[in-house]
C-alpha cells in the first residue's frame, strides 16, 4: 500500500517535471516567434526595427568579447594539438595534428566554446538586465506605455546574437588553428605556411558551414533562455541573482542539447 502510494507520488512528480519542462520550452518558442515577428514582419507594418539597440547589443555581445574569446580559443587550439599529438606521435603521424585541430575546432569546439563564453558574458547579462527591469517595474512601465517589451528589449538582442555568434565562431576557429600552429611549428617540424595550408586542405566547406549553422542555433537558444529568465523574474533583488544563475545553467544545458541534435542530424544527413 505504502509502496503503491510512493510509486504514484513518483509518477506524479515525473509528470509534473515533464509538464513544467514542456511549458518552459513552449515559452521559449513563443518568445522566439514573437521576436521573429518584430524582426521580419512588423517593420513592414510601420513599426521599425530598433537598429540602435541591436547595434549596441552587437557591440556588447560581439566586439567586446573578442579579446577573451581569442585568448581562450588560442589555448583550446594548443590543448587540442597537444592531445592529438599524444596519440599521433605513436604512429609517427604528427603531421596530422593540423587536420585534427582544424576539424575539431570548426565542427565542434569553435561553436561550442564561443557559445559557452557568450552565455557567461551575454546570456547572464540579458537575464540580469531584463530581471532588474522587471523588479524595478520598468517592464510594467513599457507595457503601460503600449510598448511591447519583446519588441523593445528582446528583438534587438536576437538580431545581435544571430549576427554576432557566427562571426565570433569564425574568429574562434581561426584563433584555435593559430594555437595549434604554435605547437606544430615548435614541436612537429611544421613551418607556419605549411601548417596553415594543411589545415585549409583538411577542411571542407561543409565542416565550416555545419559549425556556423550550429552557432546560429546556439545564438537563438542563448537569447531565448536569457530573456525568458529575465522576464520570469519574481519580486526582489535576490530573484535577479537566481534568474541569472538559471539563465547560465539552462543555457549551457540547452546549447549542449541543440548541439547533440544538430550533430546527429548532420551525421545522418551524411554531411560526413
Amino acid at each position, binding site marked *: 500500500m505504502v509502496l503503491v502510494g510512493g510509486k504514484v507520488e513518483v509518477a506524479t512528480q515525473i509528470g509534473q517535471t515533464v509538464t513544467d519542462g514542456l511549458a518552459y520550452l513552449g515559452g521559449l518558442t513563443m518568445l522566439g516567434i514573437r521576436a521573429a515577428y518584430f524582426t521580419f514582419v512588423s517593420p513592414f507594418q510601420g513599426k521599425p526595427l530598433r537598429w540602435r539597440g541591436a547595434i549596441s547589443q552587437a557591440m556588447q555581445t560581439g566586439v567586446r568579447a573578442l579579446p577573451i574569446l581569442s585568448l581562450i580559443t588560442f589555448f583550446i587550439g594548443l590543448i587540442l594539438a597537444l592531445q592529438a599529438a599524444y596519440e599521433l606521435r605513436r604512429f609517427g603521424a604528427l603531421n596530422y595534428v593540423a587536420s585534427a585541430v582544424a576539424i575539431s575546432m570548426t565542427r565542434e569546439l569553435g561553436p561550442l566554446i564561443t557559445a559557452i563564453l557568450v552565455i557567461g558574458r551575454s546570456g547572464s547579462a540579458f537575464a540580469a538586465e531584463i530581471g532588474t*527591469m522587471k523588479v524595478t517595474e*520598468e517592464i*510594467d*512601465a513599457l*507595457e503601460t*506605455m*503600449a510598448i511591447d517589451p519583446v519588441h523593445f528589449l528582446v528583438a534587438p538582442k536576437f538580431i545581435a546574437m544571430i549576427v554576432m555568434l557566427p562571426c565570433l565562431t569564425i574568429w574562434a576557429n581561426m584563433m584555435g588553428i593559430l594555437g595549434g600552429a604554435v605547437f606544430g611549428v615548435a614541436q612537429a617540424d611544421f613551418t607556419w605556411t605549411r601548417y596553415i595550408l594543411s589545415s585549409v586542405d583538411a577542411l571542407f566547406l561543409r565542416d565550416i558551414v555545419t559549425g556556423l549553422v550550429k552557432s546560429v542555433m546556439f545564438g537563438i537558444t542563448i537569447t531565448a533562455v536569457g530573456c525568458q529568465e529575465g522576464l520570469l523574474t519574481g519580486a526582489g533583488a535576490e530573484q535577479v541573482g537566481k534568474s541569472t544563475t538559471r539563465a547560465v545553467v539552462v543555457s549551457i544545458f540547452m546549447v549542449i542539447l541543440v548541439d547533440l541534435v544538430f550533430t546527429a542530424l548532420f551525421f545522418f544527413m551524411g554531411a560526413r
Partner: protein
Amino acid sequence: MDQTTGMAMESEAMISLRNLRVSYGDREILHGISFDVKRGETLVILGGSGSGKSTLLRTLVGLERPSSGEIWLKGKNIAAISPAEMDEIRKKIGMSFQGGALFGSMTVGENVALPLREHTKLEEPTIEIILRLKLDQVGLSGFENYMPSQLSGGMKKRAAVARALAMDPEILFFDEPSAGLDPIIAAGVDELILDLKKAFHMTIIVVTHELASAFLIADRMVLIDKGHVVAIGTTAEMRASQQPRVRQFLDRVPEPAVSQELDYLQMLTEQNHPPTR
C-alpha cells in the same frame, strides 16, 4: 469644505468597475470591487499593505487580467478587449510607478520622449519642445541630459510624472507617490498632483496609504480592505464616517494584539473569519 470640481457636466463616470475579481493563481485578491470614477476628479484608493489596492491599480492599467467582472473605460470594457485595443487605450492613460521606473540606460529626456518617439510621427524639433514643456511642468527644466541614477528620489518621481504626461493622457495613475520620500519632498509631489488637477482637469487616481497626503489631494476616497470596498465617499464623508474599519484606518489604531492562546488558535483555524472586536 473641499473644493471638488463637481460641476454637473463633469460628473459622468470616466471609469466604472463592476464586480471586479482578480486572482493570482488560486488566491483571489479582489473579491468583487464596484465603484465609479468621475471625470475630472481625484480619487484616492486607500488601504493597508496587502489590502489589494496595488493589484487594483495594476488591473486598472491592464497589467493584470481580472478573473471576472467589468472595467468600463472610455466606453470599452477593458477586461475583455484585445491587446491591440488595450494598447490604444494605454496611449490615453499615464502611470507613475512607485520607484519611478525610469529606464536606467536612457537620459531623463529620452525617457520622457520615449512614448512620443514610439507612438507619434512628430518631428524631432517638436518632440524637443514638448519634452521641455513636460519637464517644465514638473519642475525639472534643464535636467533632460541627466541619467536617472543622478537624480534624487523626488526628482525621479517628477521625471516619471513628466513621462506619464508625455502623451497628454486623460487619466493619470499614481502608485504610492510619496513612498520613500522625506515629508518635504513628499509634500512637493502632492503639490504637483494638485497643480496638474488644477491646470488640466485630468482624472487622477492615486493609490496610497499616506493619510495626510490622501486628504490633501483627494476629492473622493475609496478604502479597500482584504479585497473588498469598505467605504467610498468625499474626504468630508470619510472623516465623519463611523464605520469601525474606516475609523481604525483613519485613527491609525493597530490591529488588536492576540493575548490569549485560545484566541490565537481560533484565529489560525478560522483564517477567513477574523476575530470580531
